[in-house]
């Protein structure tokens, strides 16, 4: 009897929830804001689906309805990816340790 590939994906999903649980508990509370902005950025990996959707179908009619939704999703996700990672970078650059010169 063959196992449905869905079960494999479900296993990945469940195990990832556990990984997320332990990894996020180890995040220091002072970095909770960067945590939110970076999770925001990485959840925009949904852009992968948007790209496939945008390039789907025939190359004659690029702007089919389904493709248009793909293109719109690309813009939204791209705002998030660049915005999310860069603002996280900007925040993290501000966290400094006490200078030892005193």
């Amino acid at each position, binding site marked *: 009897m063959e196992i449905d*590939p*869905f079960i494999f*994906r479900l296993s990945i*999903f469940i195990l*990832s*929830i556990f*990984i*997320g*649980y332990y990894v*996020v*508990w180890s*995040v220091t*509370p*002072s*970095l*909770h804001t*960067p*945590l*939110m*902005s970076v999770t*925001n950025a*990485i*959840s*925009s*990996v*949904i*852009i*992968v*689906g*948007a*790209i*496939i*959707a945008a*390039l789907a*179908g025939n*190359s004659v009619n690029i702007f*089919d309805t*389904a*493709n248009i*939704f793909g*293109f719109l*999703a690309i*813009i*939204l*996700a*791209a*705002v*998030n*990816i*660049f*915005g999310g*990672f*860069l603002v*996280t970078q*900007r925040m*993290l650059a*501000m*966290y*400094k340790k*006490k200078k030892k010169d005193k």
Partner: protein
Amino acid sequence: MSANLLAIFYLISGVLFILALRGLSSPETSRQGNLFGIIGMAIAIGVTFLSVGNFSTGFLYVLGFLLIGGSIGAFIAYKIPMTAMPELVAGFHSLVGLAAVFVAISAFLNPEVFNLGSPGNIKIASLIEMSLGAAIGAITFTGSIIAFLKLRGIMSGSPITFLGQHFLNLALGIILLGLIFYLCKTQISTWFWIIIIISFLVGVLLIIPIGGADMPVVISMLNSYSGWAAAGIGFTLENTALIITGALVGSSGAILSYIMCKGMNRSFFNVILGGFGGTDQSLSAKGKEQKPVKNGNADDAAFLMKNASSVIIVPGYGMAVAQAQHALREMVDSLKKNGVKVTYAIHPVAGRMPGHMNVLLAEANVPYDEVFELEEINNDFANCDVAYVIGANDVTNPVAKTDPQSPIYGMPILDVEKSKSVLFVKRSLSPGYAGIDNDLFYRDNTLMLFADAKKMTEDIIKNL
């Protein structure tokens, strides 16, 4: 590129995303973590391009739109002031939500591309996954918009409640599940559109009854939703990177919501059902009899702190509103020159999002090893000479420990009242968000400084 190789690359970017979150366990490793995240994203996008392999005009459009979105994002990221971070995050959540809805729509209209069957004959499992993804995405979208408007002050932060609200939400939730069932049974596309429209409505209804100071929970919760939406789409597209990320983000948001609820000693449902703050009028009216307070000025405050050996600063949302973090750091600098030991104490729910105060202090160049969380520093108040409370209120109210009748009873608070003297910067005696009087105002060792947080801090610097 073979499907197997593609899957392995997606797995690698999933792993890099895990490392990105892992890096946040300490500020030193966090920058490297962020880099891992960026690499993971670049891999995911790169291999997707290669897998499509169709470098036609459409491809140029994709690149074009990617650049347009990217430049908008980069522009926002550089321009946004740190005080506006909660709004920004809420805004970004709404984009993830809407993107999930769009991808789901696209997959629904053109299922062949994703190997999900043909229109009108989509695999049941895929149909369930994509309608769940679209529904959660739509809820995330409108919910985040409302959160954004409330945080931005465009919409009032006070809860909007009406009769039968919870019943309506429950009914809509059940209708949604019913519609998904019907969609699977009939494959009629109308149901799919109705599911999305109702979900948009649910997002609005879910967030309007929640008040301004509960925003940390709301933002975390929407963060979690955006993850589950991504995971739903990940199942539809059979993409491991999306499934892993969705699970990570979903559990991250859930943990943050839990931490925030615990910081307020309230259950998650209590926050979600909302309406907090509007119901405690009787309690605040009871305390209306005029009790004497000690009123001080910048000169007194400067004198007290200059002669102290240790000072603990307790910042709150008021500091963010007044943009007082830079003035505050200058004040601390001059205190340090006078040999005073200064530390910062941060309550988990201070501000409008998790870690809000930490970011603002970091922006003002406060070293992160001078900033402490509630459990780390609470015992130090007893040995401290002056506590300088700037823009915080409810999180210092001793009533939470003494009065079981109080709405904030049981909430962990900063033991500010144990320090030898308390300087309380506040514009007036008005109660805080919870609508209750702060006992601390009337204590013998409390000196009230009635002024704008930034103005008062600047005046103190002049007197130091």
